[in-house]
């Protein structure tokens, strides 16, 4: 909130999608795969029209605060059900926010879908707390059979009609998730199935209805998404090792410092999961232990289904965090049992270190994900010059240029790995009408691509201008926008 502009360029792209819907009154089908899950973008477009602002960029800066602040309520409910302690529930909220290195709380469909998922999870877990549930008896197979047939009582103070109304509300929320995001419905169906298998929900067929609705949307609403590249969609199923490798090992690359920070993130995540495992073990005598384990597994199982462009481990962490956080809080809560000055100091030290590590791991990518006022000003100059069919060259997709003129402007990477030649040669050969260069791109080249120079992008501008190929149409700070001098090239 305190920075110049909202970080994460993908958030600016989402502003562009919402703007497209506002301007064209239709989705951006054919331009991006996300068009086939337009719920979030349509909602953002509606919000823009209702609030009377120019576009959704005003929502960007407050989005992380909004998503995290609103998540506290369902998180508290979930954590109270898991820990059965008000104090540990608040600690779980702190643990959750401190472990939010995955930074999926920017203006995005997944952040909204995740919030809705949290609300469903919290409602179902609260129902368990408020209802009488018959205990299971006998051997493990007998108990599993009883669990499958078990129907919890009505939550205290709830009539049959109210219970049905609550289920209808959950179904509407699930439908909103289905049309907004690809991955969250899968996790939701598996989580609902976990509740049914363990006999902890009255809504025993909700998972079937949600699964069928998802199937219908996928096969009829999003046909153009998977038509032609079915292998990409289904090819990762069962490739657990490959998906894990894409999600973990292959992401640790680039500059040695950047690699060290990535390893710190991994270590941080490992400690978090280890703490949660300890917390889960401490609950092993509670009847709901299996349910908590299955809820974590239902999100973890995604690794066996999809690589999600190398982001699946990150997404698994996101979906498991509402259960992992209270479990980890319970493990940390061991320090709270004896209240004296030593445990108070120890807990303060643990939480201070935890908060510090959380901040460090969250900010690993900030050098190339940050968007400055200069980036936004350059984007506005770009949009004022763009004609339909123009191309924009860059070394790394940084900045805010995606927040407008979606469909009019296509992009081309001048980076050596993508183009097959040094950036200067690429720019001369491909001759995109515009080239955007910035310090964020320098940082991406230095940290992610591992190039020895710290000015790969910003040094390209003077070289192109010096050769007479491009002219500068915007330059301020470390952001520069170039335009081709002879458009006929």
């Amino acid at each position, binding site marked *: 909130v305190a920075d110049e502009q909202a970080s994460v360029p993908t958030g600016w792209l989402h502003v562009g999608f919402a703007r497209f819907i506002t301007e064209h009154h239709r989705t951006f089908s054919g331009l991006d795969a996300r068009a086939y899950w337009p719920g979030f973008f349509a909602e953002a477009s509606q919000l823009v029209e209702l609030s009377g602002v120019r576009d959704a960029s005003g929502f960007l800066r407050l989005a992380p605060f909004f998503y995290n602040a609103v998540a506290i309520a369902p998180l508290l409910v979930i954590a109270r059900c898991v820990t059965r302690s008000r104090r540990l529930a608040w600690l779980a909220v702190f643990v959750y926010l401190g472990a939010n290195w995955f930074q999926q709380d920017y203006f995005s469909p997944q952040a909204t879908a995740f919030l809705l998922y949290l609300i469903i999870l919290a409602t179902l877990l609260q129902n368990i707390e408020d*209802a*009488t549930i018959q205990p299971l*008896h006998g051997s493990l197979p007998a108990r599993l059979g009883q669990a499958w047939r*078990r*129907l919890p009582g009505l939550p205290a103070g709830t009539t049959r009609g109210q219970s049905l109304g609550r289920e209808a509300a959950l179904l509407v929320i699930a439908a909103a998730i289905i049309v907004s995001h690809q991955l969250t419905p899968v996790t939701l169906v598996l989580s609902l199935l976990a509740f049914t298998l363990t006999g902890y929900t*009255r809504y*025993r067929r909700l998972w079937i*209805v949600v699964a069928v609705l998802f199937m219908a949307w996928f*096969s009829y609403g999003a046909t153009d998404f998977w038509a032609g590249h079915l292998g990409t969609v289904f090819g990762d199923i069962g490739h657990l090792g490959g998906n894990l490798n894409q999600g973990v090992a292959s992401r640790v690359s680039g500059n040695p410092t950047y690699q060290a920070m990535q390893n710190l993130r991994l270590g941080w995540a490992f400690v978090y999961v280890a703490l949660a495992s300890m917390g889960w073990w401490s609950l092993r005598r509670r009847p709901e232990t299996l349910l908590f384990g299955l809820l974590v597994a239902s999100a973890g199982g995604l690794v066996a289904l999809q690589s999600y462009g190398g982001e699946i481990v990150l997404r698994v962490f996101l979906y498991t965090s509402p259960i992992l956080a209270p479990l980890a809080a319970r493990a940390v809560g061991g320090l709270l049992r004896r209240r004296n000055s030593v445990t108070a100091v120890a807990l303060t030290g643990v939480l201070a270190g935890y908060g510090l590590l959380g901040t460090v791991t969250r900010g690993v990518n900030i050098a190339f994900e940050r968007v400055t006022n200069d980036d936004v000003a350059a984007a506005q100059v770009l949009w004022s010059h763009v004609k339909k069919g123009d191309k924009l060259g860059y070394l790394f997709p940084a900045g805010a240029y995606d927040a407008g003129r979606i469909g009019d402007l296509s992009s081309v990477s001048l980076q050596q790995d993508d183009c097959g030649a040094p950036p200067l040669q690429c720019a001369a050969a491909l001759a995109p009408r515009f080239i955007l260069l910035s310090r964020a791109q320098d940082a991406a080249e230095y940290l992610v691509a591992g190039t020895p120079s710290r000015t790969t992008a910003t040094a390209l501008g003077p070289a192109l201008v010096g050769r007479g190929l491009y002219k500068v149409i915007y330059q301020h700070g470390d952001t520069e926008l170039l335009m081709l001098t002879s458009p006929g090239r």
Partner: protein
Amino acid sequence: VIVLDMLSRGLGVGIISVTVLVGLALEVIDQLTTDGASRADGSGPPARRPSLRALRIALVVLVAASVAATLVRIFVVVR
């Protein structure tokens, strides 16, 4: 393929719609006719639940048909 395309569009959407309706009908009946467990220790009377056997079987068949319709749809589009 043309016949399959027509079937996968019309019939597929129809099957899936009926599946959702039957699933919802079962949920509505379950919610409105059943209180569930009466005591936490299980000593109360058993949960009162209507059998609805025909609807349950219909739901299983319809879910299978929905999956089949989805597979046909994918086959048609890929072809």
